[in-house]
Protein backbone atom coordinates (compact mmCIF):
# COMPACT_ATOMS: atom_id res chain seq x y z
CA UNK A 1 0.00 0.00 0.00
CA UNK A 2 3.03 2.31 -0.09
CA UNK A 3 3.32 2.71 3.66
CA UNK A 4 5.96 4.96 5.17
CA UNK A 5 6.89 4.92 8.83
CA UNK A 6 6.84 8.24 10.67
CA UNK A 7 7.05 9.16 14.33
CA UNK A 8 3.81 9.09 16.33
CA UNK A 9 2.55 12.50 17.34
CA UNK A 10 2.01 11.41 20.94
CA UNK A 11 4.88 9.99 23.00
CA UNK A 12 4.72 6.18 22.93
CA UNK A 13 2.82 4.76 25.87
CA UNK A 14 -0.61 4.08 27.30
CA UNK A 15 -3.38 6.68 27.33
CA UNK A 16 -6.81 6.66 28.89
CA UNK A 17 -9.02 8.05 26.14
CA UNK A 18 -12.68 8.16 25.27
CA UNK A 19 -13.48 6.86 21.79
CA UNK A 20 -14.08 10.38 20.51
CA UNK A 21 -10.72 11.52 21.87
CA UNK A 22 -9.02 8.50 20.27
CA UNK A 23 -10.47 9.53 16.89
CA UNK A 24 -9.02 13.02 17.34
CA UNK A 25 -5.59 11.66 18.27
CA UNK A 26 -5.72 9.15 15.40
CA UNK A 27 -6.40 11.99 12.98
CA UNK A 28 -3.44 13.95 14.34
CA UNK A 29 -1.21 10.87 14.09
CA UNK A 30 -2.31 10.46 10.45
CA UNK A 31 -1.23 14.08 9.80
CA UNK A 32 -4.78 15.29 9.09
CA UNK A 33 -4.47 18.94 8.06
CA UNK A 34 -8.11 19.98 8.09
CA UNK A 35 -11.17 19.02 10.10
CA UNK A 36 -14.57 20.68 9.76
CA UNK A 37 -17.66 19.65 11.65
CA UNK A 38 -20.89 20.65 13.31
CA UNK A 39 -21.67 19.75 16.92
CA UNK A 40 -23.72 16.57 17.29
CA UNK A 41 -24.08 13.95 19.99
CA UNK A 42 -22.23 11.59 20.38
CA UNK A 43 -19.41 12.90 18.11
CA UNK A 44 -18.95 16.41 19.55
CA UNK A 45 -16.02 15.56 21.83
CA UNK A 46 -13.81 14.78 18.83
CA UNK A 47 -14.41 18.29 17.49
CA UNK A 48 -13.79 19.84 20.91
CA UNK A 49 -10.48 18.04 21.29
CA UNK A 50 -9.35 18.89 17.76
CA UNK A 51 -10.21 22.56 18.24
CA UNK A 52 -7.47 22.61 20.89
CA UNK A 53 -5.02 20.01 19.57
CA UNK A 54 -5.00 21.21 15.94
CA UNK A 55 -3.79 24.59 17.16
CA UNK A 56 -0.82 22.83 18.75
CA UNK A 57 0.13 20.87 15.61
CA UNK A 58 -0.56 23.55 12.98
CA UNK A 59 -3.64 22.01 11.37
CA UNK A 60 -6.91 23.82 10.63
CA UNK A 61 -10.12 23.22 12.59
CA UNK A 62 -13.40 24.80 11.47
CA UNK A 63 -16.84 24.63 12.99
CA UNK A 64 -19.11 25.14 9.99
CA UNK A 65 -22.76 26.21 9.78
CA UNK A 66 -24.01 22.67 9.12
CA UNK A 67 -22.86 19.19 8.09
CA UNK A 68 -23.30 19.96 4.38
CA UNK A 69 -20.81 22.81 4.66
CA UNK A 70 -18.55 20.57 6.77
CA UNK A 71 -18.16 17.82 4.17
CA UNK A 72 -17.94 20.33 1.29
CA UNK A 73 -15.20 22.37 2.96
CA UNK A 74 -13.31 19.11 3.63
CA UNK A 75 -13.43 18.31 -0.09
CA UNK A 76 -12.14 21.81 -0.92
CA UNK A 77 -9.37 21.37 1.66
CA UNK A 78 -8.46 17.94 0.29
CA UNK A 79 -7.99 19.38 -3.23
CA UNK A 80 -5.92 22.18 -1.74
CA UNK A 81 -3.53 19.48 -0.54
CA UNK A 82 -4.53 18.57 3.03
CA UNK A 83 -5.70 15.30 4.48
CA UNK A 84 -9.25 16.11 5.58
CA UNK A 85 -11.81 14.69 8.00
CA UNK A 86 -15.30 15.40 9.28
CA UNK A 87 -17.02 13.86 12.27
CA UNK A 88 -20.75 13.41 12.78
CA UNK A 89 -23.67 11.18 13.78
CA UNK A 90 -26.83 9.97 12.01
CA UNK A 91 -28.68 13.23 11.21
CA UNK A 92 -25.46 14.90 10.07
CA UNK A 93 -24.45 11.79 8.13
CA UNK A 94 -27.76 12.06 6.22
CA UNK A 95 -27.01 15.70 5.36
CA UNK A 96 -23.56 14.76 4.08
CA UNK A 97 -24.70 12.18 1.56
CA UNK A 98 -24.66 14.42 -1.52
CA UNK A 99 -21.15 15.58 -0.65
CA UNK A 100 -20.01 11.97 -0.14
CA UNK A 101 -21.20 11.15 -3.67
CA UNK A 102 -19.33 14.18 -4.99
CA UNK A 103 -16.15 12.99 -3.26
CA UNK A 104 -16.60 9.52 -4.78
CA UNK A 105 -17.05 10.90 -8.30
CA UNK A 106 -14.23 13.45 -8.07
CA UNK A 107 -12.01 10.83 -6.39
CA UNK A 108 -11.35 13.02 -3.37
CA UNK A 109 -9.72 11.45 -0.29
CA UNK A 110 -11.72 12.34 2.82
CA UNK A 111 -12.47 10.58 6.11
CA UNK A 112 -15.98 10.68 7.59
CA UNK A 113 -16.54 9.40 11.12
CA UNK A 114 -20.14 8.48 11.93
CA UNK A 115 -20.61 7.90 15.66
CA UNK A 116 -23.88 6.03 15.22
CA UNK A 117 -26.79 6.62 17.58
CA UNK A 118 -30.36 5.35 17.72
CA UNK A 119 -32.47 6.45 14.75
CA UNK A 120 -34.33 7.15 12.53
CA UNK A 121 -34.51 10.96 12.74
CA UNK A 122 -33.36 12.56 16.01
CA UNK A 123 -34.03 9.19 17.63
CA UNK A 124 -32.01 8.51 20.76
CA UNK A 125 -29.13 10.98 20.58
CA UNK A 126 -27.27 9.59 23.59
CA UNK A 127 -27.98 5.89 22.98
CA UNK A 128 -26.31 3.33 20.78
CA UNK A 129 -27.40 1.94 17.42
CA UNK A 130 -25.91 0.54 14.23
CA UNK A 131 -28.59 1.73 11.87
CA UNK A 132 -26.41 3.51 9.33
CA UNK A 133 -24.63 0.51 7.79
CA UNK A 134 -26.75 0.41 4.64
CA UNK A 135 -26.77 4.20 4.43
CA UNK A 136 -22.97 4.01 4.39
CA UNK A 137 -23.21 1.76 1.36
CA UNK A 138 -26.08 3.36 -0.54
CA UNK A 139 -26.69 6.78 1.04
CA UNK A 140 -25.73 8.92 -1.95
CA UNK A 141 -27.44 8.63 -5.31
CA UNK A 142 -26.07 6.69 -8.26
CA UNK A 143 -23.86 3.62 -8.33
CA UNK A 144 -20.65 3.65 -6.37
CA UNK A 145 -18.35 1.67 -4.12
CA UNK A 146 -17.06 3.02 -0.86
CA UNK A 147 -14.92 1.86 2.06
CA UNK A 148 -16.46 1.56 5.54
CA UNK A 149 -14.64 0.35 8.64
CA UNK A 150 -16.11 -0.91 11.91
CA UNK A 151 -14.16 -0.43 15.16
CA UNK A 152 -14.99 -2.40 18.33
CA UNK A 153 -12.83 -0.63 20.89
CA UNK A 154 -11.27 2.71 21.75
CA UNK A 155 -7.91 1.31 20.62
CA UNK A 156 -9.44 0.55 17.25
CA UNK A 157 -10.98 3.99 16.98
CA UNK A 158 -7.40 5.29 17.14
CA UNK A 159 -5.94 2.64 14.80
CA UNK A 160 -8.79 2.61 12.30
CA UNK A 161 -8.85 6.41 12.06
CA UNK A 162 -5.23 6.20 10.88
CA UNK A 163 -6.12 3.32 8.55
CA UNK A 164 -9.11 5.29 7.19
CA UNK A 165 -6.76 8.11 6.14
CA UNK A 166 -4.36 5.61 4.56
CA UNK A 167 -7.14 3.95 2.56
CA UNK A 168 -8.62 7.31 1.51
CA UNK A 169 -5.26 8.56 0.24
CA UNK A 170 -4.35 5.24 -1.39
CA UNK A 171 -7.63 4.80 -3.27
CA UNK A 172 -8.80 8.43 -3.61
CA UNK A 173 -12.16 7.62 -2.05
CA UNK A 174 -14.18 8.74 0.99
CA UNK A 175 -13.62 6.30 3.86
CA UNK A 176 -16.34 5.96 6.48
CA UNK A 177 -15.46 5.03 10.04
CA UNK A 178 -18.70 3.54 11.39
CA UNK A 179 -18.23 4.14 15.10
CA UNK A 180 -21.04 3.65 17.60
CA UNK A 181 -22.12 5.70 20.60
CA UNK A 182 -21.05 2.86 22.91
CA UNK A 183 -17.42 3.08 21.76
CA UNK A 184 -17.43 6.85 21.13
CA UNK A 185 -18.27 7.48 24.80
CA UNK A 186 -16.35 4.53 26.24
CA UNK A 187 -13.07 5.14 28.09
CA UNK A 188 -10.33 2.56 27.63
CA UNK A 189 -6.58 2.24 27.48
CA UNK A 190 -5.10 3.11 24.10
CA UNK A 191 -1.55 2.01 23.33
CA UNK A 192 0.41 4.38 21.14
CA UNK A 193 3.56 2.99 19.53
CA UNK A 194 6.76 4.85 18.59
CA UNK A 195 5.83 5.01 14.92
CA UNK A 196 2.80 5.00 12.65
CA UNK A 197 2.67 3.84 9.05
CA UNK A 198 1.15 6.40 6.70
CA UNK A 199 0.24 6.57 3.02
CA UNK A 200 0.83 9.74 1.05
CA UNK A 201 -1.01 10.86 -2.06
CA UNK A 202 0.59 9.78 -5.33
CA UNK A 203 1.62 12.78 -7.44
CA UNK A 204 2.79 12.93 -11.05
CA UNK A 205 3.07 16.34 -12.72
CA UNK A 206 1.31 16.56 -16.08
CA UNK A 207 -0.51 13.21 -15.71
CA UNK A 208 -4.30 13.07 -16.19
CA UNK A 209 -5.85 13.39 -12.72
CA UNK A 210 -9.03 11.41 -13.51
CA UNK A 211 -8.04 8.39 -15.51
CA UNK A 212 -5.61 5.57 -15.99
CA UNK A 213 -5.43 2.94 -18.71
CA UNK A 214 -5.63 0.32 -15.98
CA UNK A 215 -9.26 -0.67 -15.29
CA UNK A 216 -9.55 -0.24 -11.56
CA UNK A 217 -6.44 1.92 -11.38
CA UNK A 218 -6.02 4.95 -9.14
CA UNK A 219 -4.78 8.09 -10.94
CA UNK A 220 -2.28 10.45 -9.29
CA UNK A 221 -3.77 13.47 -7.51
CA UNK A 222 -2.28 16.95 -7.80
CA UNK A 223 -3.38 19.86 -5.60
CA UNK A 224 -4.65 23.35 -6.38
CA UNK A 225 -1.87 25.89 -6.75
CA UNK A 226 0.62 23.48 -8.33
CA UNK A 227 0.12 24.92 -11.84
CA UNK A 228 -1.81 21.89 -13.11
CA UNK A 229 -4.87 24.03 -14.13
CA UNK A 230 -7.16 21.41 -12.64
CA UNK A 231 -10.70 20.89 -13.84
CA UNK A 232 -12.60 19.24 -11.01
CA UNK A 233 -16.29 18.53 -11.57
CA UNK A 234 -19.06 16.35 -10.21
CA UNK A 235 -20.39 15.93 -13.74
CA UNK A 236 -19.26 12.95 -15.79
CA UNK A 237 -15.78 13.83 -17.03
CA UNK A 238 -12.91 12.52 -19.12
CA UNK A 239 -9.44 11.80 -17.75
CA UNK A 240 -8.56 15.52 -17.77
CA UNK A 241 -11.76 16.58 -16.01
CA UNK A 242 -13.61 17.98 -19.03
CA UNK A 243 -17.37 17.59 -18.68
CA UNK A 244 -18.59 14.81 -21.00
CA UNK A 245 -22.18 14.50 -19.93
CA UNK A 246 -23.78 12.74 -22.89
CA UNK A 247 -21.14 10.24 -23.98
CA UNK A 248 -22.34 6.70 -23.12
CA UNK A 249 -18.90 5.12 -23.28
CA UNK A 250 -17.22 7.74 -21.05
CA UNK A 251 -19.82 7.39 -18.28
CA UNK A 252 -19.73 3.59 -18.50
CA UNK A 253 -15.92 3.56 -18.34
CA UNK A 254 -15.69 6.02 -15.43
CA UNK A 255 -18.35 4.43 -13.23
CA UNK A 256 -16.90 0.97 -13.93
CA UNK A 257 -13.36 2.05 -13.07
CA UNK A 258 -14.52 3.67 -9.81
CA UNK A 259 -16.24 0.38 -8.88
CA UNK A 260 -13.24 -1.75 -9.78
CA UNK A 261 -10.84 0.60 -8.04
CA UNK A 262 -12.36 -0.65 -4.77
CA UNK A 263 -13.54 -4.17 -5.64
CA UNK A 264 -10.30 -5.27 -7.29
CA UNK A 265 -8.38 -4.33 -4.15
CA UNK A 266 -10.62 -6.24 -1.74
CA UNK A 267 -7.71 -8.34 -0.44
CA UNK A 268 -5.95 -5.21 0.74
CA UNK A 269 -9.03 -3.38 2.04
CA UNK A 270 -11.06 -6.14 3.74
CA UNK A 271 -9.86 -6.93 7.26
CA UNK A 272 -11.57 -9.44 9.56
CA UNK A 273 -10.81 -11.69 12.51
CA UNK A 274 -11.75 -15.36 12.87
CA UNK A 275 -12.31 -16.98 16.26
CA UNK A 276 -12.69 -20.74 16.93
CA UNK A 277 -13.93 -21.47 13.42
CA UNK A 278 -11.84 -24.62 12.81
CA UNK A 279 -14.43 -27.08 14.19
CA UNK A 280 -17.44 -24.75 14.49
CA UNK A 281 -20.94 -25.97 13.69
CA UNK A 282 -22.47 -22.56 14.37
CA UNK A 283 -20.83 -19.21 13.61
CA UNK A 284 -21.58 -15.69 14.75
CA UNK A 285 -20.97 -12.99 12.13
CA UNK A 286 -20.68 -9.64 13.84
CA UNK A 287 -19.06 -6.19 13.86
CA UNK A 288 -18.61 -3.12 16.03
CA UNK A 289 -19.54 -3.18 19.71
CA UNK A 290 -21.77 -6.23 19.22
CA UNK A 291 -18.63 -8.24 18.46
CA UNK A 292 -17.46 -7.68 22.06
CA UNK A 293 -20.64 -9.21 23.48
CA UNK A 294 -20.51 -11.94 20.85
CA UNK A 295 -16.93 -12.96 21.68
CA UNK A 296 -17.77 -13.08 25.39
CA UNK A 297 -20.79 -15.29 24.62
CA UNK A 298 -18.87 -17.53 22.22
CA UNK A 299 -16.06 -18.12 24.72
CA UNK A 300 -18.48 -18.95 27.56
CA UNK A 301 -20.21 -21.48 25.33
CA UNK A 302 -16.87 -22.92 24.21
CA UNK A 303 -16.17 -23.47 27.93
CA UNK A 304 -19.38 -25.50 27.98
CA UNK A 305 -18.05 -27.57 25.09
CA UNK A 306 -20.25 -26.08 22.35
CA UNK A 307 -18.71 -25.88 18.88
CA UNK A 308 -19.28 -22.24 18.16
CA UNK A 309 -17.06 -19.88 16.18
CA UNK A 310 -17.13 -16.25 15.22
CA UNK A 311 -15.97 -13.85 12.55
CA UNK A 312 -15.62 -10.15 13.25
CA UNK A 313 -15.83 -7.84 10.25
CA UNK A 314 -13.42 -4.91 10.64
CA UNK A 315 -14.25 -3.75 7.10
CA UNK A 316 -17.97 -3.56 6.33
CA UNK A 317 -17.74 -2.18 2.78
CA UNK A 318 -16.64 -3.57 0.42
CA UNK A 319 -18.30 -6.64 1.91
CA UNK A 320 -16.24 -9.70 2.86
CA UNK A 321 -18.27 -11.88 0.49
CA UNK A 322 -15.60 -14.56 0.00
CA UNK A 323 -14.92 -14.87 3.73
CA UNK A 324 -18.63 -15.26 4.47
CA UNK A 325 -19.10 -17.65 1.54
CA UNK A 326 -16.32 -19.84 2.90
CA UNK A 327 -17.70 -19.89 6.45
CA UNK A 328 -21.24 -20.45 5.15
CA UNK A 329 -20.10 -23.59 3.37
CA UNK A 330 -18.50 -25.06 6.50
CA UNK A 331 -20.95 -24.35 9.35
CA UNK A 332 -24.59 -25.41 9.68
CA UNK A 333 -25.97 -22.13 10.93
CA UNK A 334 -24.92 -18.48 11.18
CA UNK A 335 -26.23 -16.00 13.75
CA UNK A 336 -26.00 -12.29 12.86
CA UNK A 337 -26.70 -10.10 15.91
CA UNK A 338 -27.09 -6.39 15.06
CA UNK A 339 -28.18 -3.17 16.75
CA UNK A 340 -30.55 -2.50 13.84
CA UNK A 341 -33.51 -4.26 12.22
CA UNK A 342 -31.23 -6.39 10.02
CA UNK A 343 -28.74 -4.78 7.65
CA UNK A 344 -25.54 -6.86 7.37
CA UNK A 345 -27.62 -10.05 7.74
CA UNK A 346 -28.96 -9.57 4.21
CA UNK A 347 -25.41 -9.57 2.84
CA UNK A 348 -24.55 -12.68 4.85
CA UNK A 349 -27.62 -14.43 3.39
CA UNK A 350 -26.57 -13.37 -0.09
CA UNK A 351 -23.17 -15.06 0.13
CA UNK A 352 -23.67 -18.11 2.40
CA UNK A 353 -25.32 -21.42 1.61
CA UNK A 354 -26.28 -22.38 5.21
CA UNK A 355 -29.15 -21.15 7.42
CA UNK A 356 -28.68 -17.52 8.43
CA UNK A 357 -30.57 -16.25 11.49
CA UNK A 358 -30.77 -12.58 12.42
CA UNK A 359 -31.00 -11.19 15.93
CA UNK A 360 -32.08 -7.57 16.03
CA UNK A 361 -32.21 -5.18 18.95
CA UNK A 362 -33.04 -1.47 18.61
CA UNK A 363 -33.74 -0.38 22.20
CA UNK A 364 -30.74 1.93 22.47
CA UNK A 365 -28.77 -0.54 24.58
CA UNK A 366 -25.90 -2.81 23.65
CA UNK A 367 -26.77 -6.45 23.02
CA UNK A 368 -25.93 -8.30 26.25
CA UNK A 369 -23.74 -11.45 25.99
CA UNK A 370 -26.51 -13.37 27.80
CA UNK A 371 -28.91 -12.51 24.96
CA UNK A 372 -26.46 -13.79 22.38
CA UNK A 373 -25.96 -16.99 24.38
CA UNK A 374 -29.75 -17.49 24.48
CA UNK A 375 -29.95 -17.02 20.73
CA UNK A 376 -27.08 -19.45 20.15
CA UNK A 377 -28.69 -22.13 22.36
CA UNK A 378 -31.76 -21.98 20.17
CA UNK A 379 -29.64 -22.73 17.14
CA UNK A 380 -27.83 -25.73 18.60
Amino acid at each position, binding site marked *: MGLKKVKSTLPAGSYYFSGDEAVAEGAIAARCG*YCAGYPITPATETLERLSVRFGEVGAVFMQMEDEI*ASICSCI*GASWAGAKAMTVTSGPGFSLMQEGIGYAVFTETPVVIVDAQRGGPSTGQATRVGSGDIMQAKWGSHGDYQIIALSPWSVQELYDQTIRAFNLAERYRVPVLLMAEEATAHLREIVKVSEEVELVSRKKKAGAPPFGTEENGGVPPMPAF*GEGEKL*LVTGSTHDEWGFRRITHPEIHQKLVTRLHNKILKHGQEIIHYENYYLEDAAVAVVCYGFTARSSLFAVERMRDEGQKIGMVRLKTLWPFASEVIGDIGSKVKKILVPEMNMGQVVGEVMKYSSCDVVPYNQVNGEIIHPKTIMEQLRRLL
Partner: protein
Amino acid sequence: MARELEQYLRPGIGVTTFCPGCGEAILLGLILRAIDELQLNMDNMLFVSGIGCAAWIPSPHFNADTLHTLHGRTIAFATGAKLVNPKLKVVVISGDGDLADIGGNHLIHGARRNIDLTIICANNMNYGMTGGQVCSTTPLGALTMTTHQGNPFRPFDLCQLVKAAGAVYVARYAVTQPFAMIKSIKKALQTEGFAFVEAVTPCPVQFGRRNNLGTPADMLKTLMTKCVMKEKAEKLSPTELKDKIITGEFTNGTD
Protein backbone atom coordinates in the same frame (compact mmCIF):
# COMPACT_ATOMS: atom_id res chain seq x y z
CA MET B 1 -7.53 43.34 -26.80
CA ALA B 2 -9.89 40.39 -27.26
CA ARG B 3 -7.08 38.19 -28.57
CA GLU B 4 -4.88 39.18 -25.66
CA LEU B 5 -7.45 37.69 -23.30
CA GLU B 6 -7.13 34.28 -24.93
CA GLN B 7 -4.18 33.57 -22.65
CA TYR B 8 -6.71 33.30 -19.80
CA LEU B 9 -8.84 30.72 -21.61
CA ARG B 10 -8.22 27.01 -21.35
CA PRO B 11 -6.64 25.69 -24.54
CA GLY B 12 -9.12 23.83 -26.70
CA ILE B 13 -12.13 25.89 -25.67
CA GLY B 14 -13.60 27.22 -28.93
CA VAL B 15 -17.16 28.16 -28.05
CA THR B 16 -19.09 28.88 -24.88
CA THR B 17 -22.25 27.07 -23.83
CA PHE B 18 -24.25 30.24 -23.21
CA CYS B 19 -27.55 30.87 -25.04
CA PRO B 20 -27.68 33.58 -27.74
CA GLY B 21 -28.01 36.97 -26.06
CA CYS B 22 -26.96 35.72 -22.60
CA GLY B 23 -25.30 38.39 -20.48
CA GLU B 24 -23.08 35.87 -18.73
CA ALA B 25 -20.70 35.66 -21.68
CA ILE B 26 -20.26 39.45 -21.32
CA LEU B 27 -19.57 38.93 -17.61
CA LEU B 28 -16.98 36.25 -18.47
CA GLY B 29 -15.10 38.85 -20.52
CA LEU B 30 -15.38 41.51 -17.81
CA ILE B 31 -13.95 39.18 -15.15
CA LEU B 32 -10.98 38.34 -17.38
CA ARG B 33 -10.39 42.03 -18.14
CA ALA B 34 -10.29 42.76 -14.40
CA ILE B 35 -7.77 39.92 -13.90
CA ASP B 36 -5.73 41.17 -16.87
CA GLU B 37 -5.65 44.76 -15.62
CA LEU B 38 -4.45 43.55 -12.20
CA GLN B 39 -1.93 41.23 -13.89
CA LEU B 40 -2.94 38.37 -11.58
CA ASN B 41 -1.15 35.04 -12.02
CA MET B 42 -3.72 32.43 -13.05
CA ASP B 43 -1.47 29.66 -11.64
CA ASN B 44 -2.23 31.08 -8.24
CA MET B 45 -6.00 31.34 -8.68
CA LEU B 46 -8.78 28.92 -7.83
CA PHE B 47 -12.23 29.44 -9.31
CA VAL B 48 -15.05 27.70 -7.46
CA SER B 49 -18.49 27.43 -9.01
CA GLY B 50 -21.73 25.63 -8.23
CA ILE B 51 -24.53 24.39 -10.47
CA GLY B 52 -26.31 26.55 -13.04
CA CYS B 53 -25.45 28.65 -16.09
CA ALA B 54 -23.11 31.06 -14.29
CA ALA B 55 -21.16 28.16 -12.80
CA TRP B 56 -19.95 27.45 -16.33
CA ILE B 57 -18.28 30.88 -16.63
CA PRO B 58 -15.02 29.60 -15.07
CA SER B 59 -15.47 25.86 -15.64
CA PRO B 60 -14.09 24.88 -18.10
CA HIS B 61 -13.35 28.25 -19.74
CA PHE B 62 -10.73 29.70 -17.36
CA ASN B 63 -7.16 28.45 -17.65
CA ALA B 64 -6.65 28.04 -13.91
CA ASP B 65 -7.60 25.57 -11.17
CA THR B 66 -11.39 25.24 -11.29
CA LEU B 67 -13.67 23.42 -8.85
CA HIS B 68 -17.16 22.84 -10.24
CA THR B 69 -19.05 21.80 -7.11
CA LEU B 70 -22.45 20.82 -5.80
CA HIS B 71 -25.50 23.05 -6.13
CA GLY B 72 -25.34 25.84 -3.55
CA ARG B 73 -22.21 24.81 -1.68
CA THR B 74 -19.52 26.88 -3.42
CA ILE B 75 -18.62 28.99 -0.41
CA ALA B 76 -18.15 25.94 1.81
CA PHE B 77 -15.79 24.30 -0.73
CA ALA B 78 -13.94 27.60 -1.21
CA THR B 79 -13.57 28.05 2.56
CA GLY B 80 -11.81 24.69 2.96
CA ALA B 81 -9.42 25.34 0.07
CA LYS B 82 -8.57 28.89 1.20
CA LEU B 83 -7.92 27.87 4.83
CA VAL B 84 -5.57 25.08 3.80
CA ASN B 85 -3.70 27.15 1.22
CA PRO B 86 -4.03 30.87 2.05
CA LYS B 87 -1.73 31.75 -0.89
CA LEU B 88 -4.50 30.81 -3.34
CA LYS B 89 -6.62 33.66 -4.70
CA VAL B 90 -10.03 32.03 -4.38
CA VAL B 91 -12.88 33.38 -6.51
CA VAL B 92 -16.43 32.04 -6.41
CA ILE B 93 -18.46 32.60 -9.58
CA SER B 94 -22.04 31.35 -9.54
CA GLY B 95 -25.65 32.33 -10.07
CA ASP B 96 -28.32 33.87 -7.87
CA GLY B 97 -30.19 30.57 -7.44
CA ASP B 98 -27.00 28.76 -6.48
CA LEU B 99 -25.60 31.37 -4.10
CA ALA B 100 -28.76 32.87 -2.59
CA ASP B 101 -31.46 30.18 -2.72
CA ILE B 102 -30.06 26.72 -2.08
CA GLY B 103 -26.77 28.24 -0.90
CA GLY B 104 -28.23 31.17 1.09
CA ASN B 105 -27.09 29.81 4.44
CA HIS B 106 -23.49 29.42 3.28
CA LEU B 107 -23.60 32.93 1.74
CA ILE B 108 -24.52 34.69 4.98
CA HIS B 109 -22.13 32.61 7.07
CA GLY B 110 -19.32 33.24 4.58
CA ALA B 111 -19.95 36.98 4.86
CA ARG B 112 -20.11 36.74 8.65
CA ARG B 113 -16.79 34.88 8.89
CA ASN B 114 -15.17 37.38 6.52
CA ILE B 115 -12.74 34.82 5.10
CA ASP B 116 -10.75 36.23 2.15
CA LEU B 117 -12.99 35.16 -0.76
CA THR B 118 -14.22 37.06 -3.81
CA ILE B 119 -17.81 36.22 -4.77
CA ILE B 120 -19.19 37.16 -8.17
CA CYS B 121 -22.92 36.47 -8.31
CA ALA B 122 -24.47 36.54 -11.79
CA ASN B 123 -28.07 37.55 -11.11
CA ASN B 124 -30.33 36.67 -14.06
CA MET B 125 -33.44 36.63 -11.85
CA ASN B 126 -34.46 33.05 -12.59
CA TYR B 127 -33.23 29.47 -12.86
CA GLY B 128 -31.92 29.53 -16.41
CA MET B 129 -30.34 26.11 -16.75
CA THR B 130 -33.44 24.17 -15.70
CA GLY B 131 -35.68 26.14 -18.06
CA GLY B 132 -36.68 29.35 -16.30
CA GLN B 133 -38.26 28.82 -12.87
CA VAL B 134 -38.87 31.40 -10.13
CA CYS B 135 -36.07 32.07 -7.65
CA SER B 136 -35.40 34.33 -4.68
CA THR B 137 -34.36 37.23 -6.94
CA THR B 138 -37.30 37.07 -9.40
CA PRO B 139 -39.18 40.40 -9.35
CA LEU B 140 -42.65 40.48 -7.80
CA GLY B 141 -45.25 39.58 -10.44
CA ALA B 142 -42.79 38.20 -13.01
CA LEU B 143 -43.84 35.23 -15.11
CA THR B 144 -41.74 32.09 -14.92
CA MET B 145 -42.31 28.40 -15.62
CA THR B 146 -43.42 27.92 -12.00
CA THR B 147 -45.25 31.27 -11.53
CA HIS B 148 -47.70 31.33 -14.42
CA GLN B 149 -49.85 33.96 -12.68
CA GLY B 150 -46.90 36.08 -11.64
CA ASN B 151 -44.38 35.68 -8.80
CA PRO B 152 -46.32 36.26 -5.54
CA PHE B 153 -43.18 36.72 -3.40
CA ARG B 154 -40.83 39.69 -2.94
CA PRO B 155 -37.25 39.24 -4.15
CA PHE B 156 -34.09 39.41 -2.04
CA ASP B 157 -31.93 42.51 -2.22
CA LEU B 158 -28.73 40.44 -2.30
CA CYS B 159 -26.39 43.35 -1.63
CA GLN B 160 -28.28 44.47 1.48
CA LEU B 161 -28.44 40.86 2.68
CA VAL B 162 -24.71 40.24 2.28
CA LYS B 163 -23.80 43.65 3.68
CA ALA B 164 -25.92 43.03 6.78
CA ALA B 165 -24.22 39.65 7.19
CA GLY B 166 -20.82 41.37 7.39
CA ALA B 167 -19.14 41.42 3.96
CA VAL B 168 -16.45 44.09 3.69
CA TYR B 169 -16.94 44.91 0.00
CA VAL B 170 -20.42 44.81 -1.56
CA ALA B 171 -21.35 46.20 -4.98
CA ARG B 172 -23.94 45.76 -7.72
CA TYR B 173 -23.54 46.62 -11.38
CA ALA B 174 -25.20 45.39 -14.55
CA VAL B 175 -23.34 43.93 -17.51
CA THR B 176 -24.48 47.10 -19.32
CA GLN B 177 -22.07 49.05 -17.07
CA PRO B 178 -18.88 47.29 -18.21
CA PHE B 179 -16.29 49.81 -17.03
CA ALA B 180 -17.84 50.20 -13.60
CA MET B 181 -18.15 46.42 -13.39
CA ILE B 182 -14.47 45.84 -14.25
CA LYS B 183 -13.45 48.44 -11.67
CA SER B 184 -15.69 46.82 -9.08
CA ILE B 185 -14.39 43.30 -9.74
CA LYS B 186 -10.84 44.64 -9.45
CA LYS B 187 -11.70 46.19 -6.08
CA ALA B 188 -13.31 42.97 -4.93
CA LEU B 189 -10.24 40.96 -5.98
CA GLN B 190 -8.01 43.37 -4.06
CA THR B 191 -10.18 43.36 -0.95
CA GLU B 192 -8.85 41.34 1.96
CA GLY B 193 -11.93 39.63 3.29
CA PHE B 194 -15.32 38.64 1.98
CA ALA B 195 -16.10 40.66 -1.16
CA PHE B 196 -19.38 40.35 -3.04
CA VAL B 197 -20.20 41.66 -6.52
CA GLU B 198 -23.72 41.19 -7.84
CA ALA B 199 -23.68 41.25 -11.64
CA VAL B 200 -27.16 41.86 -13.06
CA THR B 201 -27.38 40.05 -16.37
CA PRO B 202 -30.19 39.49 -18.88
CA CYS B 203 -31.57 36.01 -19.60
CA PRO B 204 -33.45 36.51 -22.87
CA VAL B 205 -34.16 32.84 -23.61
CA GLN B 206 -35.72 31.79 -20.29
CA PHE B 207 -36.81 35.01 -18.56
CA GLY B 208 -37.17 37.65 -21.29
CA ARG B 209 -39.24 35.44 -23.56
CA ARG B 210 -41.88 34.71 -20.88
CA ASN B 211 -42.14 38.34 -19.78
CA ASN B 212 -42.33 39.86 -23.27
CA LEU B 213 -39.10 41.76 -22.79
CA GLY B 214 -38.23 41.70 -26.51
CA THR B 215 -34.98 40.82 -28.21
CA PRO B 216 -31.67 40.43 -26.37
CA ALA B 217 -30.80 43.94 -27.58
CA ASP B 218 -34.10 45.28 -26.19
CA MET B 219 -33.33 43.66 -22.83
CA LEU B 220 -29.89 45.28 -22.70
CA LYS B 221 -31.38 48.69 -23.56
CA THR B 222 -34.07 48.29 -20.87
CA LEU B 223 -31.41 47.28 -18.35
CA MET B 224 -29.47 50.47 -19.17
CA THR B 225 -32.51 52.64 -18.41
CA LYS B 226 -33.40 50.67 -15.26
CA CYS B 227 -30.01 51.02 -13.57
CA VAL B 228 -29.68 54.03 -11.28
CA MET B 229 -26.47 54.86 -9.44
CA LYS B 230 -26.80 54.68 -5.66
CA GLU B 231 -25.92 58.35 -5.15
CA LYS B 232 -28.68 59.43 -7.55
CA ALA B 233 -31.16 56.94 -6.12
CA GLU B 234 -30.80 58.51 -2.66
CA LYS B 235 -32.45 61.66 -4.04
CA LEU B 236 -35.34 59.86 -5.74
CA SER B 237 -38.79 59.14 -4.29
CA PRO B 238 -40.08 55.57 -3.80
CA THR B 239 -42.40 56.10 -6.79
CA GLU B 240 -39.51 57.19 -8.98
CA LEU B 241 -37.48 54.18 -7.81
CA LYS B 242 -40.18 51.66 -8.72
CA ASP B 243 -38.76 48.98 -11.06
CA LYS B 244 -35.29 50.58 -10.86
CA ILE B 245 -32.11 48.65 -10.09
CA ILE B 246 -29.84 50.53 -7.71
CA THR B 247 -26.20 50.06 -8.67
CA GLY B 248 -22.95 51.09 -7.04
CA GLU B 249 -20.87 50.21 -4.00
CA PHE B 250 -22.83 49.52 -0.84
CA THR B 251 -19.81 49.04 1.34
CA ASN B 252 -16.15 49.19 0.40
CA GLY B 253 -14.39 48.23 3.57
CA THR B 254 -13.96 51.80 4.75
CA ASP B 255 -17.60 52.66 5.52
